Structures are given as C-alpha cells and as structure tokens.
C-alpha cells in the first residue's frame, strides 16, 4: 500500500539503474536523514548521545569497512579492532601538526597501508586460514601499541588522552567539546563515507569485488586482476575502519589503552556486519543499532521491573543474552537484518497479494 509502484515507469536504462528505482525508498531515506540531522540533535539527551547515537554511528562505520572486505570481497577478517587502533594512534600523532578533523580523515590512510601489508597473505590463502592470518595483525598490533612508547608520546600511563582541540573556533575533541558538535562531525563523516561506499560497491570496483567473492577463478578468467581486487578491498576497508577507530577514541571514548583494541571489539564489529547482513550497506546500521542498543535496553530492564541486581551480574546476563540472540538471529535469517528488511519491502510492494 505504502510501497505501491504503480505509475512509476522507467523509460531509460539510466532510470532503471538509479540509486532509488522506487520513489518511496527515497522518501523513506529523506525521513531517516531528517531524523538523524535535525530531530535527534534537537531532542536527544546527553545520555542518548553518549550511549546510543554516537556509538551507533561509529560502530556502523567500522562495520561498513569490514563489510567491504568480508561481505563484498569475501575475505574474512578478524583483525578489525587492531586496524581501528592504527587509525586512533595515527590520529593521535597527526593532531600535533594539523586540524583534528583533517587528522581523523587522514589517519585512515595509515591503517589502509597496514591493512594492505596484512592483506598480502590473502593472495595465497583463503577462508578460515586467512581469518587466522588476520588474527596475527590483531595480536601483533595490540602488542606494538603497548611496547612502542613513541606512539603514546612516552607518557607513563601508556594510554592516550584526547586533548581539547578546536576547528574554526569550536571545540570538537576533548572534554570541552559538546556532544552535539561531536555528533554532527561524526554524522557528517559517516554520511560522506556511506555515500562513497554505496557508489563504490555499485561501480566497477564493487563488481570486481563481488566477482572475486563469488568465484575467484572465474573472475580471474574474465580478466579481473585478483591481486588488485583483494588489495584494494583491504585498503578501502582498512581506511574506513581506521577512520572509525580515530572517531571511536577522539569523539567518543576520550582516552584509549592498547587493550581497548583487543579481540572482543573485533568480534563486536563482526557481529554487527554479520547480523546486519553481509554484502549490504544498510545492514551495518541495523546491526549496530541492535548490538549497541541491546545492552542499553538490557541494563534498564531490571531497574524498570524494580529488581535489584548487581551490575556485574547484569553484565554477565548481557553477554549471555547477546550470545543467545546472535544464534537466534542466525537461525531465523542467516543473511541478516538487511535481508529481513528486503523481504518486508518486497511484501509491501505486492501487498495485498501474497505472491
């Protein structure tokens, strides 16, 4: 009913391949963007910014990076958090010489470089062997963050602290920056990256990746350079992940120790990408909303019911419930939440007819 497509005729190939072949999609997106850009910033509380809006955006961006690599190019990676760490530490060194927002955008370049180096084994090994190989990056880089004192300017704690920094006279990082400003900076960067990703995955490069993912030998036979395809996927994926890592520390956490980038963070991002849906941009947002939002909801439930549970116990229940939900979602829809939405949309278009 809402998704009635009657009357929307496509008379050229251009129209057929448009970003929004159905007008309602564009309207829906416009509504979501209005909420994200206007309504949320005006109404959200400090709590909502810090526990929901900002982390959801940052995790979505990291998951989008991973999704490029795993969902589009088919290379399973378990080292996402380490590349986020590279972005964060690179940013920490870069803010000494440049504007913080520029530093955040540039920090991804460093993680892209490291990503390509650790992507080289993908030319020889596949599947789970490659996944374990990316764990080498995970453990080695976290160790390096701890031992290489130059990275954190030789301070005694071994952690990085985010200083107060201004862009155009407004504080954007550090304790003095307001949540709204930070939210807009993150939203701007994430929107920009999303548009880039959508177009990349629709274009030549994206098709090259998908061919590599679906059948690498066939892709090679039709003239795709597998090395270039895999390494560009590693580079672009690590760039996005690195920017997400810089945002993670500079716009949200405010400080970071090496073990922040340990393997649980990698798994969180992988959950988001897989539960959201591999090979989908929308899925990263849906997955991030679920994985970030769930603990917040679970934390408020005992209070709402008037139960007194120690916070440590709540934490354990959270882990348990998240684990069970992951299995649950995998069973009901292995292709992720994005596929679930696609099915709903399909049903809406042909409604009220069942087929």
């Amino acid at each position, binding site marked *: 009913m809402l998704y009635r497509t009657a009357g929307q005729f496509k008379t050229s190939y251009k129209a057929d391949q448009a970003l929004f072949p159905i007008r309602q999609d564009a309207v829906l997106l416009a509504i979501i963007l209005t909420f994200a850009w206007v309504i949320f910033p005006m109404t959200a509380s400090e709590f909502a910014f810090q526990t929901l809006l900002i982390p959801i955006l940052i995790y979505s961006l990291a998951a989008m990076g991973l999704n490029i690599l795993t969902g589009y190019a088919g290379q399973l990676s378990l080292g996402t958090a380490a590349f986020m760490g590279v972005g964060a530490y690179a940013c920490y060194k870069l803010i000494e010489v440049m504007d913080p927002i520029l530093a955040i955008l540039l920090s991804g370049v460093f993680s892209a470089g490291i990503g390509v180096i650790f992507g080289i084994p993908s030319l*020889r090994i596949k599947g789970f062997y490659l996944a*374990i190989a990316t764990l080498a990056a995970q453990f*080695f880089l976290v160790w390096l963050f701890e031992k290489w004192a130059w990275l954190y300017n030789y301070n005694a704690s071994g952690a990085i602290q985010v200083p107060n920094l201004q862009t155009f006279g407004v504080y954007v990082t550090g304790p003095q920056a307001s949540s709204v400003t930070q939210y807009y900076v993150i939203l701007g960067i994430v929107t920009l990256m999303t548009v880039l990703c959508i177009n990349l995955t629709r274009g030549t490069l994206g098709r090259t990746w998908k061919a590599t993912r679906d059948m690498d030998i066939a892709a090679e036979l039709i003239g795709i350079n597998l090395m270039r395809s895999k390494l560009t996927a590693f580079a672009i994926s690590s760039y996005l992940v690195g920017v997400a890592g810089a945002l993670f520390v500079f716009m949200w956490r405010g400080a970071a120790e090496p073990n922040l980038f340990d393997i649980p963070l990698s798994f969180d991002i992988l959950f988001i990408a897989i539960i959201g849906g591999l090979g989908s941009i929308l899925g990263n947002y849906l997955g991030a909303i679920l994985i970030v939002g769930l603990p917040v909801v679970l934390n408020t439930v005992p209070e709402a019911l008037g139960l007194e549970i120690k916070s440590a116990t709540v934490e*354990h229940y959270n882990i348990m419930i998240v*684990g069970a939900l992951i*299995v649950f979602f995998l069973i009901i829809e292995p292709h992720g939440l994005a596929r679930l939405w696609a099915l709903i949309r399909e049903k809406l278009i042909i409604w009220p007819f069942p087929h």
Partner: protein
Amino acid sequence: MKDIFITPFVDMFAAPDFLLQVLWEGLVSGILYALIALGFVLIFRSSRIFNFAQGIMVVFAALTLVGFHAMGVPAWTSVALTLGVMLALAVSIERVVLRPLVGQPDIILFMATIGITLFLIGFGEIIFGGENKVMITEELGIPTDSWVLEPWGGLLILEQKDVTAVIAAAMLVVGLLAFLNYTRMGRAIRALGDDSQAALSVGISLQTIWVLVWFIAGIIALVTGIAWGARAGVSFALEVIAYKALPVLMLGGLESITGAIIGGLMIGMLEKLFEIYWGQPLLGGNTETWFAFMLALVVLLFRPQGLFGEKIIERV
C-alpha cells in the same frame, strides 16, 4: 646484529640446562595447544564447522569439575558428572544451534559458535563466579612434587604434574586415533569428513555423529582443563589459550590430527625459545601473544596448505 644472530646462541650453549628447561616448558604448553587444536580438528573434519567455542569449553569443563567437587562430591565422581554435563552440552548445542543451521555457509556456523562462546562465558560467570579457582590436582591423584635433574652439572626441574599431563595427552591421542581407525563409530566420523553426501547415503546419522564429535571435543576440553588448571588455576583467562590453538591449526592444517600435534609442540617450543632468547632481551617481552601467529603466517606464505594439511585442489 650481534644481539640477534650471535648472543642468543652463545647463551644457549653456555647454559644447556637452562635451554633444556625452556624447551621442556615449551613442550608442556605445546601439548596443551595441541590438545585444543585437536578438538578443533575433530569438529572441523566431521562437520566443516570452525568451532570457536573450544576454548570456552575447556574453561567450562574445568569450572564444572571444580564446582562439583566444591559441593562435596568425591573427585573422580565429579569427573564422571562433568563428562555427563559435557555430553548434555554436546546434545543441546546440536539440537538448538547446529541442526537449524545445517547447510548454511561456513561463516554463519562460525559466527554461531562465537555466539555459543559468549553464551557460555555469561552462563559460566553467573553459575561459578569469575574468581580464580584452584584445580583439584591432589584429589585426582596427580602427583605435585617435582624431579630435580642435574644434566651437565646444571639444574633441570620437571614438575610431576606436567609429566602427568604429557603422558595423559599422549594416551588421549593414541586412544583417539585407535577409536577413529578401528571402531565403527570412528570410521563413520571419518567417512562424514571425507564425503558427507556419500556418508549420509550409506545410513550414517549426521545428528549422532555431530553429538559424538562435540562430546569427544568436550572430553578433550576436560583433559586440557585439568592439565592447564593444575598449572595456572581455573579462570576465564584460560580462554585466551584457545587463540593459541589457531596458529597451530594454520601450521598443521585444519584437517590433520598429526598436524595438530606436531604443530602444537613446535609452536609451544619455538615461542618459548623466541620469548626467552630474543623477545625479552630485545623486544621488551610478552612476544608470546603474537609470535605463533607471525610464524604461521610466514610458513603459510610458502606452503598455503600448512605443513600437513591436504593439498587444496582448485576446481573450476
């Protein structure tokens, strides 16, 4: 350069007894890596599931054992009860998680085992609590003294519980190989690994075999849990040794039992050697977290199928 290429070897020859001690320590941890890798290999061979939950199963088995004993159950009865719990776990994992996911892509099943891992972490913390516990080593009759040897006039200390662990692991492996090669059930497991369609068509039950391999993985987890718990106590920190089994798998191949054992021993010894002679003096120590991965990575660049893995033949 001298520090990298000469000094470590001079040190090794100057104190051969210390070198032996380092190798022995490496061998013992290598055995444990090999045991965990063995659990992975069994499940991977028979179901193509990359079972990430093996590490938490080790913790869970050890905690259950200690928990039963704390309730006043005699030590060996607790072992039997723990085996019962592991069987129940295998059955419920197969029923609840694996059966609905049969035929899904590998990565989905892999994610499901990570889901199981998280679930077991939360569940275990709620039931047993997060604090470090003491493994019931003496109650199980494991000797806790140590032998002091004096090779070349030096000093070499062999803890008897480590010797017991090595012997128990060796017996477990021999028993497992005998089971896989000489019993109907064992052959059914291997048949399923070789060709699942053919195995199903001759009447091998997928469900039974999956429960069986997960149960065997549970037994291996219990043995690993006892051996490692005797060395370092039982806590959730044990879970990280599961990661150590991953480079072992890369090196030995995901499908090879011999590979898992030899790979485990090699990695155990090499990472100790590297840590003592290169890592601590030159790199600030704690290199054990990544050395095994880097080693496996370098080996795989030259031998993509691992040292003992089956050669992957690409078909178009």
